[in-house]
């Protein structure tokens, strides 16, 4: 059923991008107390593209992701996902959060199968989940309790759970932000590898410049409040990439550019 809808939208419209953000504003509060978090955001994410959203703390990058996910509604403007207006969360837009947010009352494979079973695809759930667990390096852990896994492993389960429903867009909100440096680096190369196999459309929020550069095709740098998008940086580093591209001159130059963009050259404040 899902594949049929997919087919129709694709044949109906020549190019329907996974995500189109048009003139989006987001304000919190009303009247004189209103605070603008996002102002006139325009962004088109193409099929199979990995886009990171970065910016100084409080720039609304997580808010933008939550709007795309449908957890919150726009104050004005519109967000479309494969041609359909986003009004509420949907299986089209899978999300991975900073917390793995697994169901502790289910074992590893039951977590991964949750979405499939919830949407009436229980029959195929187990083979799909087994394949995904193998891909994320957790073969043999199917029956483990999730709260007995390490942080990195919990994230792998979380990613597998979201991928199980084959969302049209994968939204990731600082997924590795709470991990220790080593696990974080490990998860970054893991995600890079996984993405290069799947080529799914990903929108990735991070405050880690290196992480954003390593993974992305484009990096959207948001400014604070009314400022809107500061710049969209194309990351021309060829793929397939490996973790050691972080040592190349091209990468280092891009990192400096991004850092200046995020911290704001004139404001002279740290990006944190």
């Amino acid at each position, binding site marked *: 059923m899902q594949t049929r809808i997919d087919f129709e939208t694709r044949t109906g419209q020549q190019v329907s991008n996974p995500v189109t953000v048009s003139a989006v504003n987001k304000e919190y509060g009303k009247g004189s107390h209103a605070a603008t978090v996002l102002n006139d955001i325009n962004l088109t994410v193409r099929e199979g593209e990995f886009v990171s959203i970065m910016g100084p703390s409080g720039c609304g990058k997580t808010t933008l992701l939550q709007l795309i996910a449908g957890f919150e509604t726009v104050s004005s403007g519109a967000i479309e996902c494969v041609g359909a207006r986003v009004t509420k969360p949907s299986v089209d837009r899978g999300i991975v959060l900073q917390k793995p*947010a697994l169901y502790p009352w289910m074992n590893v494979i039951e977590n991964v199968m949750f979405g499939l079973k919830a949407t009436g695809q229980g029959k195929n759930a187990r083979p799909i989940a087994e394949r995904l667990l193998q891909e994320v390096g957790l073969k043999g852990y199917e029956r483990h309790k999730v709260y007995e896994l390490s942080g990195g492993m919990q994230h792998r389960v979380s990613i597998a759970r979201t991928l199980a*429903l084959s969302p049209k867009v994968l939204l990731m909100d600082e997924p590795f932000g709470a991990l220790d440096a080593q696990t974080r680096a*490990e998860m970054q190369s893991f995600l890079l590898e996984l993405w290069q196999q799947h080529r799914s459309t990903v929108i990735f929020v991070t405050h880690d410049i290196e992480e954003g550069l390593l993974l992305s095709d484009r990096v959207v740098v948001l400014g604070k409040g009314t400022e809107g998008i500061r710049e969209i940086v194309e990351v021309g580093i060829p793929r397939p990439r490996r973790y050691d591209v972080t040592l190349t001159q091209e990468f280092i130059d891009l990192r400096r550019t991004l850092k200046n963009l995020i911290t704001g050259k004139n404001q002279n404040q740290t990006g944190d």
Partner: protein
Amino acid sequence: MTVNSIRTPPVGLSMLTDKRLHRRISIIVFSILFIVLAWELAARFLVRDETLLPGPFSVWNHFTYLLTTSEKVGIQNDIWASTARVLVGWAIGIAIGVPVGAALATNEVLRIGADPLLQAGRSVPPLAFAPLMVVWLGLGEPSKYVLIALGVMPIIAINVSAAIGGIDRSLLRVTSTMGASPFYRLRRVIIPAILADLFTSMRVTLGLAWATVIAAELVASTAGLGYRILKASQYMDTNTIFAGILAIGLLALIGDRVLLVLQKVLVPWRGVG
């Protein structure tokens, strides 16, 4: 791809648990021994009057006698009467309290409107309603059921409502992208998520149910442990009073332990205290 960093409890950990268990048991045994000893000494050297304070062994003998003698003399029927009232009243309180709590959690108007009533209702000792229940429902069983349920319901409702409100937001957000129907979400996410808190409030209210039933039986009843204790006091039969108190304590303890074990089996992901 290091996946060997799993936190499975190694052999050493289960041994530690064994050690802890031994420690727990010895503390419990010693505290009971201490109480029995202090009681015996007080009875023998301080009060020195069997009709005022019988010693622990005298009480224990009388207690076992009351349990094993003919039903006409013993307390078997009283135990059964009180236990049945507790279980029925408590079950009614939970059965009403859970959906009320769920409604409070999902409906803001209801929550704001019902909150003062529930908070006040929770603070009024159920016993204050006892005379009213006698007037409305008579001396029979229904008045006891309603009295217990009245005490249990608001506590369960408040706790269930708080538990639903306290479910991890990340968990709910992820779930909202999984295409689950409201019923599936309720069954597979909401209920498991509040189960630990529900068990805790069930344990609290079971104790309350016991306190309520005894008080209600003291006020107006023709059977039950409270009634039996009241009658014994009229005959200066302190041994039976103590035996009755012991029975109540043991029954409440058994109920609590059963719930605790159930909680550990059904909610293993949550540390239980």
